[in-house]
Each structure stands twice: as C-alpha cells, then as structure tokens.
C-alpha cells in the first residue's frame, strides 16, 4: 500500500514541477523566433529590389544606397539559425545588424521623399507598402517573441520549477531590450555643410 502511495506521489510531483510547462514554452519560443527570422529574411529579400528602383531615379544618392547595400550584406553574412536564441552574444550581433539595416532603409525612404517621380513609380509604391508591412510584421513577431521569452524565463527562475529547469539544463533566453532599440532608433544626422550640389533635388 505504502509503495503504491509513494509511486503515485512521485508521478504527481513530477508533473507538478512544471516540466511540461518548460517544454511547451520552450517550443513556443522556437516558433516565435522562427517567425522573427522569417520576417527579417523577408525584409532582406525586398532590399535589392528597392535599391534597384531607387537607383533608376536617384543614382547619385550614392551614400544612402551604399549604406543600405552594406547593411544588407552584413545581415546576410550572419547565419540566422534558430540556435541564435541560445547564444547571447550571437543574438546581440544579429539584432545590431538588423538594427543598422532598419535605419539604413528608413534613411533611403526618407531620401526618396525628395523625388516625386520616384514616389509616383508604381513599383516603388508597391515595394514601399511591402516594406512597411514587413516592418510591422517584424514588430509583431518581436513582441510575440518577447512575451514567449518572458513566460519561459519566469518559469525557469521561479521556485520550484527552477529546480526542474536546472536538472534538465534549461537556462534563461535573451530577449530584445531597450538598449538594442536605442541604436536602432537613433535619428539620422542632418549635415547642412556638406550639401551636395545636384541637378534634381527637392521637387
């Protein structure tokens, strides 16, 4: 009788240690991260087309075009694998590279505002809409990832599930932080001194 009791007690305590919660939230993170990667990839795929269209109307805006292309190359050089979430340093590098890309793209779009013909181009407008949509998807995917990581990290850190996590080697996972955001949202500098003398600027 007592043996039976002890066996049952063990089964129940094991399921009470949030082992299943760890499993399912870990899997949620993997899915959420895959979606983040997917949307970043989608943006990277759009960039060459955007650069080509802008080139057609504003080829002399070399600086901005080169910046975007470089940012695109840098993003492409980082292996975007699902395993990134387990390596905090690689995660940070990846986010920083994507942040540079975000600001390079927004600078390019800001420059494009000065070219009415470019703005009227159907191809450019479609690309712009796609980029906007993709940026929004990235935001949504990032938020979902942040929430998934939050839930997971709480489970990993709180008692008694932290014991289970320790036993099975689950550690906290990195998330997007405001520090990363700062680099991304830094406003482009306006430099009036080095105004380029061009043939077709402002409208």
């Amino acid at each position, binding site marked *: 009788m007592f043996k*039976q009791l002890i066996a049952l007690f063990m089964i*129940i305590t094991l399921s009470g240690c949030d082992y299943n919660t760890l499993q399912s939230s870990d899997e949620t993170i993997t899915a959420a991260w895959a*979606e983040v990667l997917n949307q970043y990839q989608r943006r990277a795929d759009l960039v060459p087309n955007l650069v080509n269209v802008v080139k057609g109307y504003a080829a002399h805006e070399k600086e901005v075009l080169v910046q975007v292309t470089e940012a695109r190359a840098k993003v492409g050089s980082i292996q975007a694998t699902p395993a990134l979430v387990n390596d905090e340093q690689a995660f940070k590098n990846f986010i920083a590279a994507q942040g540079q890309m975000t600001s390079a793209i927004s600078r390019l779009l800001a420059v494009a505002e000065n070219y009415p013909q470019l703005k009227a181009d159907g191809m450019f407008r479609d690309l712009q809409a796609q980029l906007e949509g993709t940026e929004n998807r*990235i935001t949504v*995917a990032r938020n979902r990832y942040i929430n998934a990581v939050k839930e997971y990290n709480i489970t990993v850190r709180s008692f008694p599930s932290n014991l289970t996590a320790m036993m099975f080697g689950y550690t906290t996972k990195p998330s997007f932080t405001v520090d990363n955001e700062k680099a991304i949202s830094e406003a482009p500098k306006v430099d009036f001194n080095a105004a380029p003398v061009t043939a077709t600027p402002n409208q």
Partner: protein
Amino acid sequence: MLIKLRYTVGLGLLLFMTTLWAEVAIPDLSQRVTDLTATLSTEQIAALDTKLADFEAKKGSQIAVLMLPSTQPEDIAAFGIRVAEAWKIGRKNLDDGVILIVAKDDRKSRLEVGRGLEGVIPDAIAKRVLAETMRPHFKDNDYAGGIEAGVSQLIGLIEGETLPAPSGNSSDTSDGFDTFLILLFFCCVIIDLIFSSLLGSGIGAAVSGISIGAISAFAASFFALNIWVAVISGLAMFLFLKLFYLFGGNSGGGGSWSGGSSSSSSDWGGGGGDFGGGGASDSW
C-alpha cells in the same frame, strides 16, 4: 461563484491596466460593423452588415469594420494588431479574416489582413485598396461610400482565393479536459487510498467521494471547464475506481455547488483567426 469572482477581478484588472497605459481600449466585438463616431447611419451600417454576413455565409471568410475617433497615442498599426489579437476575426487555422479600421479624427486607415489571406491581399494590394479606392471618398468626407467601396474590393479579392467552404459552428472541445481527467485520476487514486486506509472502507469511501467531488469542482474552475461536467466526471471516475478495487459501491456525494457560468453568446464573434501584422496603413 468562484468563476464569477474571477471574471470580476479580471475585468477590474483589465480596466485598471487600460487606464494605466492610457491606450485606447479595444471595443467589444458584437457585430460586423462597429462605428464609435456615429458617422454612419443605421441604414448604412445595416446594409454593410448584410453584405458582410452574406459574404461570410457564402465564402466563410470574416470581415469586420471598426470606425473610431482616434487611436492616439498609439500608432494605428499597433492598435490594429491589438484589435486583431482580441477579436480573432476569421476561421481558426484558416486565418481568413480582415479588419478595416478607420480612425476618423486621425485621418488614418488600416487594413489588418489575416495570415491566410496574405496571399490574395498582400501588403501592396492592401495599400492600393486604402490609397486608391478608399482615400478619395474619405477626402470628400464620404465615409460610408469609402468603406463600402473598400469592402467590395476586398470581397472581390478574397473571392479569387480557393478556401474551404463555410461549415456550421463546430463544437470545440476544451483543451484542458484531458489534462484535467489525468490529474483527476491520480487524485482519485491517492485520496481513495489515504481515506480507505485511515478510516476503513465504509466511511473512507464516503469521505473520499465527497473530497473528490470537491476537488474536481475546484480543478474545473482552474481549467475553465463546466463545473457540472467536472463533478460528474469526478464521480464517474470515483465509481470506476470503486468497481476496480471491488470495494462496496458507496457513491460519495459530489457537493452542491451552484456555480457554472453559462457564457453569454454574443450576436457575432471572431472564429479564432490569427494575424501576423500583415496589411497596410494609409492616411488622407
């Protein structure tokens, strides 16, 4: 009682939090066309509603329209995804819902496109619907006309997509139910063993029956299940256990809780569609 209390606390918390963040609260979803600005006339709303209802009956996809004064301080895209996550327009797993949001005083519009429709309504097309079809109407303050034209175009687009035919409301089984049954089974075994060994088979069975009834009622509230289903399954499990052990069949009482919140079914609601942030925003 317990469940009611939980809802009250949850609602209070929600209200508290929305005032804390000063975000625009997401309106309740009860009909296809929600106008918080009193711009559209009753007839216009009815006409739109009929159109959307017919379309849903024919094609299965859900379209909702929300018109509100402003989404400030939040960006309309951020507000849009919150609405989409709350309303869950579109069928589950097909994710074929579209939400059109018009922030009248902000002069901004947004199309939130469900994941399943991103193929027929990619961002570029969504942008065109907003900018080319609807914006001219909105500029002339013809909101009804703009929404009507936009919705017609959306319907035309979705009709080009092959989607599974609409089906009647499928009864969804609670996800927590099997977990609940497994836990309950172990609880039954343990409690029964304890009480039977302590109090003997007669009184022990009665006591354990009552406690199992009580436990299943409590557990049900955690898993958000119907309390009576839980109590009955608790009792069934108990009886099964008794037969299994070939003790005397002493049916324990299940406790007389008069809880169980019958969920009030609203007129119309989302089918569980998922949104990934696709769509477009526009201003006029």
